[in-house]
């Protein structure tokens, strides 16, 4: 792949495009760019040799991320999803070998020594598909709900993640996610970070499924830097963290890490992850609808009528302004207002008022089109399915175009994963207790 032309891009845009390209050359260009910027080697805090000090949950990210003035977690800005397929030599009789486990664990520990466990360093999870677990004679414990992914609406025809595992790398530093990927899977000289050489034999265990590699970014002001991409209109608001122009991930609309945790059995301190990848039609959203219509469709008609949101959601603070009344009004709004909001609708999937999903989604321009990689953690995949059904709103008496944001999203892929506890993250058996 050719590198992006630096002269025409801002530094952040350049760095983002390097993450999308990946590879050793992109990494070295990215490192050059970041040292130019700071006039010195870019500092990334180093990790620890005391690996027991790290959290038991792979997805324990929140307390290692900053929060905004309203208390909302600020997610890491740059993301790579690396799809992985087990190599033949990593298995014996179909099951992973002890050697393969050791190599995997050792590679991950190397990362933890090189980088601080934080958004400023590196956060990562390694999850496994139902297809991976099928190789074992035993079933997953009953407490783990991990079905094969399936189409969740009548209008979608997605492909499925049927490889074995997914490594989600995230950092505020684009060069970190790049050099980690390069260290694990590159075929050139291993990068070095904070005195740790990022060498690994992980390629003995996993092959990267290149065609399903995914990248992205999230944060105030990042989407607007991509208006050079076809399909990303100039109208994307300056401060918006997401392409559709509004904030998301409000503290009170997110499940806590505790809430999504599997609390018993060998996978206690694990969770399930759903990853769906979708195109987003932004030109129609921004150029054919006005702000009032967008607010009606993203939040609720009442949010629009009462002007509760502000330009990009800055008026909403730490929640999405969804009172029980507004959630319960969804069906009535469909008939009386002719439009319902995405947030209002999806909130019907809450149980006892608690949001069931911990969203860690991010924007993408993979394939040179705007989109979203929707990464969601929940206790059971069933929780996700329930929220998605509520969000689809097939029960609502409303035109499809006014049914939240359904008119604008086009799901291409779905995958389900188990994120085992850190202790079992390296090629776990389906039932480690058996």
């Amino acid at each position, binding site marked *: 792949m050719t590198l992006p032309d630096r002269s025409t891009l801002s530094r952040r845009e350049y760095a983002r495009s390097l993450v999308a390209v990946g590879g050793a050359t992109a990494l070295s260009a990215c490192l050059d760019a970041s040292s130019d910027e700071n006039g010195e080697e870019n500092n990334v805090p180093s990790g620890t040799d005391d690996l027991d000090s790290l959290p038991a949950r792979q997805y324990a990210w929140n307390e290692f991320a900053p929060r905004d003035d309203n208390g909302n977690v600020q997610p890491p800005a740059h993301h790579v999803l690396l799809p992985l397929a087990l190599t033949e030599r990593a298995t014996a009789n179909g099951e992973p070998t002890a050697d393969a486990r050791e190599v995997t664990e050792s590679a991950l520990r190397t990362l933890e020594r090189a980088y601080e466990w934080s958004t400023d360093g590196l956060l990562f999870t390694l999850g496994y598909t139902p297809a991976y677990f099928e190789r074992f004679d035993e079933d997953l414990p009953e407490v783990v709900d991990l079905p094969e992914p399936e189409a969740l609406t009548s209008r979608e025809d997605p492909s499925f993640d049927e490889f074995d595992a997914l490594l989600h790398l995230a950092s505020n530093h684009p060069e970190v996610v790049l050099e980690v990927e390069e260290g694990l899977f590159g075929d050139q000289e291993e990068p070095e970070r904070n005195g740790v050489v990022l060498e690994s034999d992980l390629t003995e265990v996993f092959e990267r499924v290149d065609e399903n590699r995914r990248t992205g970014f999230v944060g105030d002001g990042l989407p607007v830097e991509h208006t050079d991409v076809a399909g990303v209109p100039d109208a994307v608001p300056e401060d918006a963290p997401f392409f559709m122009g509004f904030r998301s991930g409000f503290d009170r609309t997110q499940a806590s890490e505790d809430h999504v945790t599997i609390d018993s059995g060998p996978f206690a301190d694990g969770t399930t992850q759903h990853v769906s990848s979708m195109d987003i039609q932004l030109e129609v959203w921004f150029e054919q*609808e006005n702000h009032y*219509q967008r607010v009606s469709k993203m939040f609720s008609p009442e949010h629009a009528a009462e002007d509760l949101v502000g330009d990009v959601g800055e008026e909403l603070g730490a929640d999405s302004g969804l009172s029980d009344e507004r959630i319960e009004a969804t069906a009535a709004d*469909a008939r009386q207002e002719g439009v319902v909001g995405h947030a209002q609708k999806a909130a019907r999937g809450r149980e006892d008022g608690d949001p069931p999903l911990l969203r860690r989604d991010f924007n993408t321009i993979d394939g040179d*089109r705007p989109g979203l990689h929707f990464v969601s953690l929940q206790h059971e995949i069933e929780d996700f399915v329930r929220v998605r059904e509520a969000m689809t709103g097939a029960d609502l008496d409303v*035109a499809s175009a006014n049914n939240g944001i359904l008119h604008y999203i086009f799901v291409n892929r779905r995958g389900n994963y188990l994120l085992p506890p850190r202790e079992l993250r390296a090629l776990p058996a389906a039932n480690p207790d058996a």
Partner: protein
Amino acid sequence: MQDFTPTTDETEIDRRTFVAQTGAATGVLALAGCFSGDDEEDEDDPDAENGDENGAGEDYGDGRPTIEVEDPPNAVYLPTHREAMRMLDPVEAGDIMLGPMLSYPHDFWTIAGTGEDAVERESPNSGRGVHMMFTLWDQQTGTVLPVDDGVQIRVYDGDEQVGSPVSPWSMISQEMGFHFGDNVTLPEDGTYTVEVTIPPVSVRKTGDLVGRLDERVSATFEFEYDDEFRHEVIGGVQYLDEAEWGDRGALEPMDHGDHGEHGGHDGHDDHDHEDEHDDGHDHGDHDGHEQDHGDEHDHNGHDDHAHVPYSALPQVEEYDGTILATADDESGADGVPTDHDSLPRSDDAAILAALFEDGSADAERLSDDGDGDVTAGQYLLVSPRTPYNRVPLADAALSVTVERGDDTIAGPDAVLAETLDSEYGIHYGLVVNDAQIEAGDSVTVTIDSPPQVARHQGYDTAFLEMPPVEFTVPEQ
């Protein structure tokens, strides 16, 4: 193609004038320069600037054709021009036929809700591309499918996908009736392939549609985007006499099969255009017309253009039930509407209400949506449609209250379920099986929210603030 773009002597003059103005400037810049109705946008439109650089964008000046209608009535009105379009051969998508139609990117209005803020005018900021439209209909029954369940289109240039996928709007236009459409930007001239996927039709279905159209289906078609196309769709535009712009009335449907039935704009302000329309349908040929459109035959590869059904609902007399009388008796004998023009209006939507008696074939058919759990009874059918052209007004929410003196017979505000029937088309209906509606009962139809369909010019100011309509059940 003669009945496809009917002309009159009057509009012929306008059209020639228009062609003379734009003749030198085909293509993108003519589109950008001529058809964007928004002057402000034109000024920072890069395509318009390119036009100037080429020395071709400067002819438009003050005489530039416009789609602006000053102060249109809050009713259906005549737009400034008739659109021209290229019709492609219909393609099959399972049980569904899809008739693609292409024009230049143009203005339309989206609607998401009920108030003024909920309506937005889309003005394409790039003239490069097409207004892509298609009508969907069931092959078996010929029923046009006027419902939005999330149709998707993806445009390809060879193997390469162009832009993001699009969910086209469900839309109504005077000439096209109900269709799906959107402005689609194209990067350059070329041959494009369009993949359309149609999800299951989820609206309540009756008659020959029960248990059908339940699969997601798809179809593809190709089109050429080039100078010839642009010339055809621009050159074919016909301007109405400016004095008519904004007059109450509607353009006649394109390519509709029932010329004789159209017309009858009685009781409306403008009788001139009524005459003109009636004449227009019968016009055999126009020399200019032949010249301009002769080349279309080559694209389609046959002499007759593909027939795409127009979504007109049946005439009043075709409903084999009791047509409810309007409460304020202005229309027809005994207050019972006898034809389309005597139907009561709500924000200019004509509202037909019919009652089918228990045991009648219609009531049985309309009560049975295949679920098998509804006891047949009387069936109350409410069918809002556009004045003049009888285009169905889909994706509204309607409810009904039936009263006899102080007693409520049905309701209050019983939901009328949007239903697609193989005979009576899209309507809103209620099975009445726990009461009996009788002569003399009052029937109040409330429009909870207006039809949430995008609108071409002339439909943008009607069917928005729709007051309830009161009917009474007449003596048999």
